[in-house]
């Protein structure tokens, strides 16, 4: 559906060249929700703008829906853009137009006749749950409602791809979840391919099927969301995973325990899928002569299943502790000993 091949983007500035994107190869399948995560300045804004030709690559090719976007110009590019919609962090609605007229704008651009426009706008307003607000102006709406207008506007011309540029970063947590639900719903119902960029792992785990992690213009890691969560490779990915597993907060208490109980072992257990439901801790305590002290626990839902982390302290005779570890291995649970923080 989307294929980026050997993409590099270099900006020329007065102070020399800046490489925003470097040697990126990526392919995104039809109908999936693909997330690109990175801190600001990682190049993800440039990446998403390469997909609708708002930015042109310095080298490499961008292909979307069978069309080469990186080389398209004029009418060809404008027509392609009607099938590659975009929503924005700050919504970017026209304040001078009502909700209905904002949603009608892309239809006007596409040259849809007035009667048909009105009908389509009505459908879209229902789809995003804004009935009764047709004639309000953007200034009269809340952030969440504004993003709903943005989504309706993006869907107006029945696009194949929806690009989300930090679409929930300006919203509060609850509204974020509501908008993410809406995006997931649209993806399921319309079979739309969604590409989103974000700096929040929460967004990735909530709706994405696959994820690419970006750092300094390069994709450092990519794969199925659950796999990346379970087994992050790059340092930056580990940091992002910590955002949602909540292990960042427990760092201090782990430090304290390491000092107070020098004999025991602190172990981080990672469960995925239905393994999260196994009662392993009680098994360990029953079968071996060990003490288990729970430091931190967390279960996170992703679209492809649950993902859990549990940090425990296991204390006891060395051979008993070792056997407990072996049991964990047979259960296919990842156990990682933490001896320093």
């Amino acid at each position, binding site marked *: 559906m989307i294929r980026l091949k050997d993409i590099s983007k270099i900006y020329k500035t007065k102070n020399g060249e800046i490489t925003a994107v470097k040697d990126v190869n990526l392919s995104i399948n039809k109908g999936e929700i693909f997330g690109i995560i990175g801190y600001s300045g990682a190049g993800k804004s440039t990446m998403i703008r390469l997909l*609708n030709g*708002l930015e042109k690559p310095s080298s490499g090719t961008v292909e979307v829906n069978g069309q080469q976007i990186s080389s398209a110009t004029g009418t060809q*590019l*404008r*027509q*392609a*853009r*009607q099938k*590659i*919609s*975009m929503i*924005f962090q*700050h919504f*970017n*609605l*026209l*304040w*001078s*137009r009502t909700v209905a007229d904002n949603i009608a*704008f*892309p239809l*006007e*651009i*596409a040259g849809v006749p007035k009667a048909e426009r009105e009908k389509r706008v009505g459908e879209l307003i229902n789809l995003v749950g804004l009935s009764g607000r047709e004639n309000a*102006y953007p*200034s009269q709406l809340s952030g969440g409602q504004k993003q709903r207008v943005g989504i309706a*506007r993006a869907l107006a*011309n029945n696009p194949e791809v929806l*690009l989300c540029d930090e679409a929930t970063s300006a919203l509060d947590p609850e509204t974020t979840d509501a908008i993410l639900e809406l995006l997931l719903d649209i993806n399921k119902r319309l079979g739309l391919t969604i590409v989103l960029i974000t700096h929040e792992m929460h967004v990735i785990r909530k709706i994405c099927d696959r994820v690419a992690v970006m750092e300094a213009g390069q994709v450092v890691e990519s794969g199925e969301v659950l796999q990346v969560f379970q087994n992050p490779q790059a340092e930056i990915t580990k940091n992002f995973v910590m955002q949602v597993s909540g292990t960042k907060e427990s760092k201090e208490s782990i430090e304290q325990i390491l000092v107070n109980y020098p004999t025991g072992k602190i172990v981080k257990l990672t469960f995925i899928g239905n393994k999260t439901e196994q009662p392993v801790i009680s098994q360990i305590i029953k079968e071996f002569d060990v003490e288990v002290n729970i430091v931190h626990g967390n279960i996170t839902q992703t679209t492809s299943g649950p993902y859990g982390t549990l940090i425990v302290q296991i204390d006891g005779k060395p051979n008993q502790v070792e056997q407990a570890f072996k049991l964990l291995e047979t259960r296919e649970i990842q156990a990682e000993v933490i001896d320093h923080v």
Partner: protein
Amino acid sequence: MFNQLFPNVDWVKMWEATYETLYMTIISTGVTFVLGLAIGILLFLTSPHQIWANKIVNLLTGSLVNIFRSIPFIVLIILLIPFTKFLLGTIRGVEAALPALIIGAAPFYARLVLIALREIDKGVIEAARSMGAKTSTIIWKVLIPESMPALLSGITVTAVALVGYTAMAGIIGAGGLGNLAFIDGFQRSREDVTLTATIVILIIVFILQFIGDFITTKTDKR
């Protein structure tokens, strides 16, 4: 009572002069709006990082605007005498004031247009481009409507300045209230005529400002 307070005022002449001032102001404001808007949009679109980014066109247009904006209006009228004569065959009368009024005011308004357009959220223009909008669509459906309040308050300021310009043009023979105040009032030492002409000009300015403010507030949905 009026005749006692203003013994020398010829009300028919005063009304005629008011009509001339209004005529010059309205026509020149109208043309200035269109011309200034066009130049302002050109300046905006050719500036760096915009759709038509073009250093040469931008610099050339910008310089022309600055030159005409810097020439004092009274000097501009004199400089434009040959041009006016070529265009209209005369340099006297209401019509003859129009070229100078427009050439004096349009660059000033073009600057105000540029300021107004720069205030537009860049994201909105990007959004329109992401939808596949043509540049003409962006101009008519994004740039102009999204900057409308500032464009209107700008044209109000320009119209008020134009009332002042018409008075200056009047002194060198264009007619209107300025002409009346100078020829009839000042040169013949009839202070009441000068005073009345001033009051009428003030009323015109107040009305213009009121209308401008009213429409500006009406169009602003932010």
